[in-house]
């Protein structure tokens, strides 16, 4: 952050120097005859004055990094994500599916957290620590995939819906039909037709997830569609595709990132919900969804509550981080919040 200020100040100094041209202050001020002579006039220098050295992305980043809370959560999420991926590579990590047995050949089930099992074990003796990180990996994968599909399909459909007037009727009807099918019903249906797994969950969540995004983009596009700068592009014969990519979408960066950031924890949340109603991932594929589901069923027993608390804590960190980062970035990406 400090770096940005320094660059700005350095540039500012240079401009002022330039405006003072090549006059030497001491020489000018020493002699009244010189001081009170006409300096001459250079139109280019007059034209050059008055800039702010503004760059959209630099200002966006600067505004973002000014927000201490956002930076903290960005760091927290960065560390969490990084750890999720390097965790299996670290020494002394256990297999999340391996059932651990004690001296007597009995499974070490429901062991509370200790030196050996940092987060304890579950009811059949699997290591909860490694299951949580494996689960986080699965859930993040689901979340990202669903968010990407939602973004690609939602933005594409939303832009066409909003910008191409002829398609408005078609998309509006399509939206009304799809939006009226209860999502739960659809999920149940799909889980009966297809075999449960990560692909099925992604498919099921993506099937309707893009609708909200599309409608949102459509409304945004309609707001900016007929602004003067778009009329100008149309007068210049710019094809629709380029207007969409160069004129419309760049204006929506902040709102799109905001929704994307929310889509990830949303998808993870839906996965938890789907598991809760019993049609989610099998226990053989650990995910935050089935970990929380298992933990929830043991909630009544105080000694076993750790099995719920740890996965919920990880879910909370991810959800809150994405939410705060997305919000702050959306704010920062709004040029109204930049120094002009």
């Amino acid at each position, binding site marked *: 952050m400090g770096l940005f200020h320094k660059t700005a100040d350095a540039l500012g100094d240079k401009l002022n120097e330039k405006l003072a041209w090549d006059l030497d202050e001491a020489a000018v001020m020493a002699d009244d005859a010189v001081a009170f002579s006409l300096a001459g006039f250079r139109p280019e220098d007059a034209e050059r004055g008055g800039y702010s050295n503004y760059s959209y992305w630099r200002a966006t980043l600067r505004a973002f990094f000014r927000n201490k809370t956002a930076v903290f959560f960005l760091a927290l999420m960065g560390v969490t994500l990084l750890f999720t991926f390097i965790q299996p590579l670290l020494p002394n990590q256990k297999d999340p599916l391996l059932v651990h047995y004690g001296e007597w050949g009995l499974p070490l089930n429901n062991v509370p957290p200790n030196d050996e099992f940092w987060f304890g074990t579950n009811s059949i003796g699997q290591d909860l620590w490694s299951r949580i990180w494996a689960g986080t990996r699965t859930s993040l994968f689901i979340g990202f995939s669903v968010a990407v599909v939602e973004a690609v399909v939602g933005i594409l459909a939303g832009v066409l819906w909003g910008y191409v007037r002829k398609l408005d009727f078609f998309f509006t009807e399509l939206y009304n039909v799809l939006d009226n099918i209860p999502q739960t019903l659809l999920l149940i249906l799909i889980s009966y037709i297809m075999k449960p797994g990560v692909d099925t969950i992604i498919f099921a969540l993506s099937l309707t997830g893009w609708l909200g995004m599309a409608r949102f983009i459509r409304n945004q596009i309609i707001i900016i569609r007929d602004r003067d*700068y778009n*009329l*100008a592009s149309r007068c*210049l014969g710019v094809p629709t595709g380029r207007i969409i990519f160069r004129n419309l979408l760049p204006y929506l960066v902040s709102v799109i990132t905001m929704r994307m950031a929310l889509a990830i924890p949303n998808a993870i949340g839906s996965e938890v919900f789907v598991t809760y109603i019993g049609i989610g991932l099998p226990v053989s594929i650990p995910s935050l969804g089935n970990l929380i589901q298992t933990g929830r069923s043991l909630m009544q027993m105080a000694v076993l509550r750790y099995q719920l608390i740890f996965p919920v804590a990880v879910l909370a960190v991810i959800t809150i981080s994405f939410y705060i980062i997305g919000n702050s970035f959306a704010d920062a990406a709004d040029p109204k919040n930049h120094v*002009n």
Partner: protein
Amino acid sequence: MPETREKLLQVQDLTVTFGSRRHPFTAVDRVSFDIYKGETFGLVGESGSGKTTIGRAIIRVNPVAGGTIRYKGEVISGRVSRATDRRIIRNIQMVFQDPMASLNERAKVDYIVSEGLYSIHKHMPEAERKERVAKALSDVGLLPEFASRFPHEFSGGQRQRIGIARALIMEPEFIVADEPISALDVSIRAQVLNLMSQLQKERGLTYLFIAHDLSVVRFISDRIGVIYRGQLMELAESEQLFAHPLHPYTRALLSAIPMPDPIREREKKLIVYDPSQHGYTPADPPLWEELEPGHFVRGSQRELDEYRKMLL
């Protein structure tokens, strides 16, 4: 003699309506005028008078409900062929009112200025494109190094010049300038006005200059049309109009021009125009007639007779 000059643009009985079919609102009502090659035609009226709508109908942003617009004799209103479409895009360009809203904030000046080139010369080499942008920028008095900046960094006057550069790069013959200076500070207006007249001299451009302020239009226009609630009230050569304003609305507009001269201002009498003062009836409808060469006025037979007396 005006008749011998080439008519670049002919607007005939142009009607533009908005709203639904059941509740149409007529923004422009049977307006006719010609614009000769190389001249500046000023269109003056208050907000909501339909002047901007006419400009937008010419560049085909607003659909036409009736009448025709011809460019060099060819009809350009309504459906046109692809070839005509491309020709119009090249030849007719627009300068917008609000320099804050008419530039893409998220694109660099380089892209904004060369936007039109991408569509008419699809395979122009990068070096040539850069060169053209630099030329267009220096033509409007901006430094070529500005190409790498974003519109945010510029003042209103500079932004308006970027907008002009963007139109110029298409090498148009005709430019619709929709209140190009009313959103600018007075101190900056002169820059843009000078630039426009200089470009006209150098390139033989033809302008339709839309404004709400007669003093500005007088300075730049050869002929002026005065529009009120979608209808033309008076049309004449600039000096003719200022010397012999006939229609009461024109006289109201003239009387309202603020002068930077306290003594004259203190003696000024404001004329207030009331459209009901005409008392038109079906038996005595308003007509559109040429009272002296090139000087048209709208009025009933009785009014026209009075106007004729004023001209004597």
